[in-house]
């Protein structure tokens, strides 16, 4: 009993959870800045830069606006942070195939938590800029959730044949398959990648946070340690969301040396794809983003669902 609690705590706090994800996340956010710099022919920051940024924010003054709802304002970053922490712990355990109960629906709910926390925190801050940011974040969530769920529906249809009944939603079972090796799976992967782009708040979907229009929008009123928690949350999302794509679409991470290296390769591939999309596109307006996600991505996914169903019916694995 006590050993079980200790292992669970170790999982959540040290190895796949807090410390490990945090370290990987800080390196990943360095990677974002460094690759962006290289794309722009700059040198870019040193590898310890994100860690120093967070350390500095921890030592700064925390300002809470007069009009803010204090409790919600302070708790919101922690809610988002714990959501990402749970998600990444779960995904690592699934990724290295330690037996763990966790299905795709839990992951979907945990993935919404950071956006919800952002909306909550920015609405509590009482700033008009943050209100605009919160409204935009809300519309963005409404836009990308539909295609994201549809993309997972494609995966579930695609992998249903090879799995035992009752396991179709389990992440461990899904991570054994690589649905991206088919037409419908590839379509779903591309759309899910764009949804992850929007979830991470990267250009072209950084509408809620746009610095030039609404001055960092949702985060405008946060300073000091609370801002550091947001930054850590974003760094950890940079681990969790690409990892989620790897687990669901690209066949997961194995426990063998080859599988581990392959898993790291897949993760880096997804992250670099996200960074390159970030650096080669201008920001879109919220109505453009909504049209893009609902009509173009939604349309592509309806086609993918039909293809996947037909493929299952006629036994064509490549469809």
């Amino acid at each position, binding site marked *: 009993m006590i050993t079980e609690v200790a292992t669970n705590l170790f999982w959540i706090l040290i190895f796949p959870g807090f410390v490990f994800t945090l370290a990987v996340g800080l390196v990943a956010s360095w990677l974002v800045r460094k690759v962006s710099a290289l794309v722009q022919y*700059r040198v*870019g920051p040193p590898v310890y830069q994100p860690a120093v940024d967070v*350390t500095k924010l921890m030592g*700064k003054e925390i*300002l809470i606006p007069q009009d803010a709802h204090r409790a919600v304002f302070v708790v919101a970053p922690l809610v988002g942070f714990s959501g990402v922490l749970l998600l990444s712990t779960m995904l690592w355990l699934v990724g290295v195939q330690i037996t763990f109960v966790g299905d795709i629906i839990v992951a979907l709910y945990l993935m919404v938590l950071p956006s919800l926390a952002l909306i909550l925190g920015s609405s509590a801050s009482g700033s008009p800029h943050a209100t605009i940011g919160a409204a935009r974040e809300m519309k963005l969530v409404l836009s990308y959730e539909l295609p994201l769920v549809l993309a997972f529906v494609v995966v579930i249809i695609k992998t249903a044949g090879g799995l035992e009944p009752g396991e179709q939603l389990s992440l461990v079972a899904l991570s054994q398959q690589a649905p991206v090796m088919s037409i419908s799976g590839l379509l779903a992967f591309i759309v899910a990648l764009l949804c992850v782009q929007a979830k991470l708040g990267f250009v072209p979907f950084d509408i809620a946070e746009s*610095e030039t229009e609404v001055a*960092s929008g949702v985060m405008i009123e946060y*300073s000091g340690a609370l*801002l550091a928690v947001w930054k850590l949350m974003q760094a950890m999302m940079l681990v969790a969301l690409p990892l989620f794509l790897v687990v669901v679409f690209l066949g997961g991470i194995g426990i063998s040396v080859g599988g581990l290296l392959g898993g790291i390769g897949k993760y880096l591939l997804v992250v670099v794809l996200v960074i390159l999309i970030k650096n080669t596109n201008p920001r879109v307006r919220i109505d453009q983003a909504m049209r893009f996600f609902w009509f173009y991505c939604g349309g592509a996914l309806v086609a993918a669902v039909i293809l996947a169903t037909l493929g299952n019916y006629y036994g064509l694995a490549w469809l």
Partner: protein
Amino acid sequence: MNWKMWSLKKSVWVFHVNCGACNNCDIEIVNLLTPKFDVERFGIKLVGSPRHADALLVTGVGTKQAARRLQEVYRQTAKPCVVFCMGACACGTGIFEGAYHVAGPVDEVVKEVDPNAIIAYVPGCPPKPEAMISGVVKALAAI
């Protein structure tokens, strides 16, 4: 040196305040972020909100309209923070000395709010990007 100061020097986030400048200094400040100078090498980054900032880059003379806004922005900035007066106008009102619209040089405007404010000066019309980097380095070394 404690960890707060060390990390502050390694990661200076900058908020840019224009207090009635002719845009010349502003162009040179933006120049700092371009591939030629790339101050992100030193962890210097432009941010969109004074709450995130460690340094205020103030350009312009401090007009009567802008002075109150500058004071408000200074109050909103999370301390500790440094105020950089960029250019001749910000340092000592420059060619606008004694003009009807001037509320005073930037350092006096800021010191009305906080007499102990840390203020650094980079003169020039406009100061070259090299001069700005040198000014920031000297100011950080002096803290």
